[in-house]
């Protein structure tokens, strides 16, 4: 494999990624300074080439949005065609012009890559919005696109029903791509880049069985995950169609809910759908918060492998259940809904919150404040590790809470050996501490973000709502940005803060923040 890396330029991303981890072993025969220079330029080329591949894929997907544009004849075809071809061309150029690289061997660049990937994809992804004239300013277009690619679901559109169909599909699709992207990152790319070794994905990959060992090489993992993702989406499109929803709506709803995104193609969230369709949506959202490896096992009927290994499923469902019960009681007693309505609304909304989807079944900004506050806390908790959902992740919260319990136990029985256990296996202190660091960094980022938002002119409640909404990928906040609301009224600075929050939240803060840690750039 390594010899082939030298012999011919590498064409597909998976073997490049595979080689990335072996890069450090390669010795250069030229002088040290020259070799360092070669290495850096080679690394940057590798990076650009990788980006090119992703951009080409994005361009192709953009062009797919031509189908509804032509079918519904809404004069958006030109804009989509231009932006799709432009993206494709840039991607192709990047790919071709950087073909003479060796391997991506710089770990710094692997961090840069992950961040730049999201930023660049969103940059080109905002072209359709601008080219079709759906959005006037770049800030808004970028906000909407990054919100899509981070599968947040925070929107700047006050009304979506008048938008061209191609734009609606592109919005839904960007989430679908973003959702798959994060699974790809966590389960396939991060392990090969060596990111999980240090930090953020540790919890996912080292405690439960890593998906990599489950299905073999990175390439196989990616392929199978893609199959599962597409299959799952197809199932939900079929389910929606069964309830009499047009194919167009079914596809869009599936895209935005299975990826825990939350963009809607209706002005009023999913409030106008039938009860059955809403429950299907709830199911899709719940599944989007489930660990992807587990979904894979579930779909491939290897249920015996799931048993006993996924304690977080239990907690995930328990949290969902508690939230649904509390919310329905609150809705019934406080808001005067009938039982069937309050149960339906709270089940769907709780699923939306815990999976950090952000699909709205009712105008939650009118709901009782404590319920909204619980939603905020629950969305911070988020879905399961290794899923498309955001937040701190159920597994980490479990580790944090169990750690406190263990400390109490140890105080009572000082000489007992009493480790924190997850899935029956002890979790070492360093891992718990890493989870703690993530939690504190997360909390700090939220607090700083809230203050920045207040400084740029939002009220306290809105700032908290928007910050938590964006960093967890839930999307809607509190107040004007909550419920059926949107972020259009936010100042431009606030929007950029939200954009930063979405990116930080999606990449679990540390991947982004480490780029601002000076010693990283003093390396070598």
């Amino acid at each position, binding site marked *: 494999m390594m010899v082939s890396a030298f012999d011919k330029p590498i064409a597909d991303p998976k073997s490049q990624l595979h080689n990335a981890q072996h890069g450090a072993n390669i010795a250069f025969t030229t002088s040290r300074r020259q070799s360092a220079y070669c290495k850096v330029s080679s690394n940057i080329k590798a990076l650009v080439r990788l980006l090119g591949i992703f951009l080409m894929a994005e361009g192709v997907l953009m062009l797919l949005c031509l189908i509804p544009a032509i079918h519904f004849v809404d004069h958006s075809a030109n804009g989509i065609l231009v932006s799709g071809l432009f993206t494709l061309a840039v991607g192709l150029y990047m790919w071709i012009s950087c073909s003479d690289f060796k391997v991506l061997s710089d770990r710094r660049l692997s961090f840069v890559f992950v961040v730049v990937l999201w930023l660049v994809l969103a940059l080109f992804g905002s072209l359709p919005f601008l080219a079709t004239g759906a959005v006037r300013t770049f800030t808004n277009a970028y906000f909407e696109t990054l919100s899509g690619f981070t599968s947040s679901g925070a929107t700047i559109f006050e009304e979506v029903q008048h938008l061209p169909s191609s734009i609606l599909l592109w919005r839904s699709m960007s989430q679908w791509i973003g959702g798959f992207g994060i699974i790809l990152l966590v389960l396939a790319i991060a392990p090969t880049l060596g990111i999980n070794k240090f930090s953020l994905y540790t919890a996912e990959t080292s405690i439960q069985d890593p998906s990599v060992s489950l299905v073999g090489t990175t390439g196989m993992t990616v392929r199978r995950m893609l199959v599962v993702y597409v299959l799952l989406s197809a199932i939900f499109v079929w389910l929606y169609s069964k309830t009499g929803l047009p194919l167009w709506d079914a596809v869009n709803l599936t895209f935005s809910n299975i990826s825990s995104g939350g963009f809607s193609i209706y002005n009023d969230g999913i409030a106008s759908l039938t009860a059955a369709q809403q429950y299907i949506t709830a199911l899709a959202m719940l599944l989007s918060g489930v660990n992807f490896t587990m979904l894979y096992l579930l779909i491939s009927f290897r249920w015996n492998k799931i048993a006993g290994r996924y304690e977080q499923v239990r907690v995930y469902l328990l949290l969902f259940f508690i939230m649904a019960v509390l919310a329905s009681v609150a809705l019934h007693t406080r808001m005067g809904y009938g039982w069937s309505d309050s149960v339906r609304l709270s089940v769907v909304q709780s699923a939306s919150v815990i999976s950090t989807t952000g699909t709205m079944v009712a105008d939650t900004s009118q709901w009782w404040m404590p319920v909204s506050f619980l939603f905020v*806390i629950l969305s911070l908790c988020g879905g399961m590790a290794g899923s498309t959902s955001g937040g701190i992740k159920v597994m980490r919260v479990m580790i*944090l809470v169990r750690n406190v319990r263990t400390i109490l136990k140890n105080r009572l029985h000082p000489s007992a050996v009493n480790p924190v256990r997850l899935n029956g296996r002890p979790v070492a202190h360093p891992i718990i501490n890493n989870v703690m660091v993530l939690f504190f960094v997360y909390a700090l980022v939220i607090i700083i973000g809230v203050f920045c938002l207040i400084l740029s002119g939002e009220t306290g409640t809105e700032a908290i709502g928007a910050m938590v909404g964006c960093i967890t990928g839930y999307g809607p906040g509190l107040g004007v940005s909550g419920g059926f609301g949107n972020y259009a009224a936010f100042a431009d600075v606030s929007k950029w803060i939200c954009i930063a929050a979405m990116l930080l939240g999606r990449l679990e803060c540390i991947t982004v923040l480490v780029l601002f840690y000076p010693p990283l750039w003093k390396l070598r």
Partner: protein
Amino acid sequence: MNYRCVFQLLSLLLIVEAVVMIGCGVLSWFVGDGAVAGFGIAALVVLIVALSLRMAAGRHVRYQLSERDSFWVTSLAWIVVPVMGCLPFMLTGQAHRWVDALFESFSGFTTTGSTIFDDPACLPISVLVWRSLTQWVGGLGLVLLMVALMRRISHGTWYLYDAEFSGTQQRRLYPKLSGSVGRMAIVYVSVSLALVFILLLLGNNPIDSVCLALSTTSTGGFMTSSVGLAGLGNATLIVITLFMFMSGVNLAVIYNVVTFKWRRLHRLDEFRAYVVVYFVAVALSVIALLLAHNDWRSAVGFSLFHIASTISTCGFYAYSPAHWTFGVSVITFFLLFVGASSGATGGGVKVKRILVLTRYIRNYFTRIVYPHAVFNVKVDGMVLTDEYNNKVFAFVFTYLAFVLGGAFLLTLSGCDIPTSVTLAAANMCNLGPVPVDGLLGVSASYLALPTLSKYTLMVLMVAGRIEIFALLAIFSPAYWRKK
């Protein structure tokens, strides 16, 4: 469980409380403010409870405490004493509802300083002094008081100590705990007395001097006027600033300085961090204020005073609300969580824990950059183990969880989310008065809060004061499970 010893300890504490009440009654009789009867009845009730506890304990008390008992003693002491302490407020007719009296008492003993009195200046002098005394007693730590009083406990005093100061390894002043506590108490008392004298010398009236001195050294924050300390002279404010700053310092450090034991003063990472945080915060606050109003003198004065008041979790205010710019609020919010040094009378997460946390996070990022290198987290030159760090983090996590949970309960009674979070944080950290728009202007009190919110805040105050774990332990199922 050693109930007898627990009862014995509690009765002792209550007797001390009754004695203090009687003292206030005598004061009331001297100045003739009409609160004699109230204090008398309150003291009588407390004495009766104390004596019945003593009877329940019986004669044959085994003076040994296990780790389990220590949680009980700590939690019970911090519940029973404040509950009894609410009697004078109620019986002298100053508080109109039990929940208000309880709130004031809890706020006092936990050195929080949130008050329900709109205008403390209208209170009888004896009640004012009682309020400040509750803080002063609470500032020393009820449990430490117990240890100091009960020298007969042969086993388990350090458990008690740990139960109250969970997880910050304190250096011992003296091999025996009661010896350490005695020395700390001496420092505490002499600092308080010194402040009373200085305030008197500066020409303040005796009641203000005593009450403010007690509030300052205990980092409580009850004030004697509805305008805070605004009416006092500049010299007084400077002195109080100095003493507030000092109250946030570990008592052991002060002891070593005062007794000229310089050799014990090496490697004061926490003290250094405390000073650095203080001055950085002052600098930031001055900048924030200068951006708002171009007035050097008041900006510097306000910042020095306000930051000292916040970082020691004292909670005094002396300046007009115009100084509460957004920047100041932000700094205040962060300082809230930093809190005082460990081993001081102040609340908050404590500088030492924040120090461990920040050093660990830096270490974490360094490990990302150099994955194969070994870096340690050190405080005071000692390598901290992962287990120790873990305890510190768990504490901070639980602290934040309590703040969030408390904020949720506050929203139940109609506060909006930012207000709830601020109130929960301010009371959890035992700061007390915080200006929140619409609810607590600088002169307003907690009186208007609904009952549920008051109880929530009381729980938070106690949890923050005894550093959560003792309280959490007695509510955990594992505690009650039979061996």
